[in-house]
């Protein structure tokens, strides 16, 4: 798996992501600066990591979404390439128009930084094949603007087309108001685009991949990507 991690000023999770990708694939990811106009040759996964690109000025992800490298990412995604956006990366992908909707201020106005449970809604996608459908995983979140919103028609389409891959839930896998940490529409934690090759999610699977982290539930996502790409090769 040849992955490329985009680096914007203010991003701070790129090293965690690089470590998780290296652990899963055995290959060191390329770090790609936002001013680049092309991705490294042979890239088969682009990752937009978390952090606070441009200090969250204007709107979270708004300025990063207009960086030169994003044109290359758009072309890459249009050609079917896999793109993963985590946290600020999810916000950037929405602002760039690669995913529908928007991430609003958390409904209870607080920055949330703790572990959450996610229900994996299906296992037949490149981003979830390391899990079973209905499986509950524990991963951390760290965000102030993770409240996913979209117009009613978009939400209906996301649900109808099975594009919600991860949802906030209780430890038992129950999706309810109490487990919906940020007030997201339909407890949405992660969605894919129409073609299914671009995933955005608020939680940080890259931070639960080694025993020393206290949990390895995030490994499945990366292992699934590696397995998918190996099979495609």
């Amino acid at each position, binding site marked *: 798996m040849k992955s490329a991690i985009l680096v914007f000023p203010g991003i701070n999770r790129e090293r965690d992501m690089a470590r998780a990708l290296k652990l899963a694939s055995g290959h060191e990811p390329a770090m790609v600066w936002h001013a680049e106009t092309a991705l490294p040759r042979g890239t088969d996964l682009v990752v937009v990591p978390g952090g606070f690109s441009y200090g969250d000025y204007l709107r979270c992800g*708004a300025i990063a979404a207009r960086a030169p490298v994003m044109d290359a990412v758009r072309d890459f995604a249009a050609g079917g390439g896999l793109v993963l956006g985590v946290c600020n990366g999810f916000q950037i992908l929405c602002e760039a128009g690669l995913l*529908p909707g928007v991430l*609003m*201020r958390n409904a*209870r106005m607080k920055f949330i930084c703790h572990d959450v449970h996610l229900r994996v809604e299906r296992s037949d996608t490149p981003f979830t094949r390391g899990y079973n459908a209905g499986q509950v995983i524990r991963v951390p979140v760290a965000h102030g603007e993770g*409240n996913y*919103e979209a117009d009613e028609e978009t939400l209906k389409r996301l649900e109808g087309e099975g594009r919600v891959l991860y949802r906030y839930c209780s430890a038992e896998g129950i999706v309810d108001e109490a487990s919906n940490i940020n007030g997201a529409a339909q407890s949405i934690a992660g969605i894919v685009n129409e073609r299914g090759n671009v995933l955005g999610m608020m939680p940080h699977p890259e931070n639960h991949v080694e025993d020393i982290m206290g949990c390895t539930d995030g490994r499945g996502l990366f292992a699934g990507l590696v397995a998918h790409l190996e099979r495609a090769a």
Partner: protein
Amino acid sequence: MKARVTVTLKSGILDPQGKAIEGALKSLGVDGVASVRQGKVFDIEIAGSDKAKAEAALKDAADKLLANTVIENYRVEVLS
């Protein structure tokens, strides 16, 4: 020319910041505040003196960056 772009949340979009400000105003005892919605104002200096051209540039700026039209409306004004 001086110009102003005002960006506001579309109606129906939840505005937790506006709600918090509304609560604070009420607790300060400011009379008659029924509700608050927060927005943004951009004061922009435009080179040249062609008003129509300036308005087109401001609209372009709002569509491309200043507003997220999924959730926000904007208004463009050339002030002088």
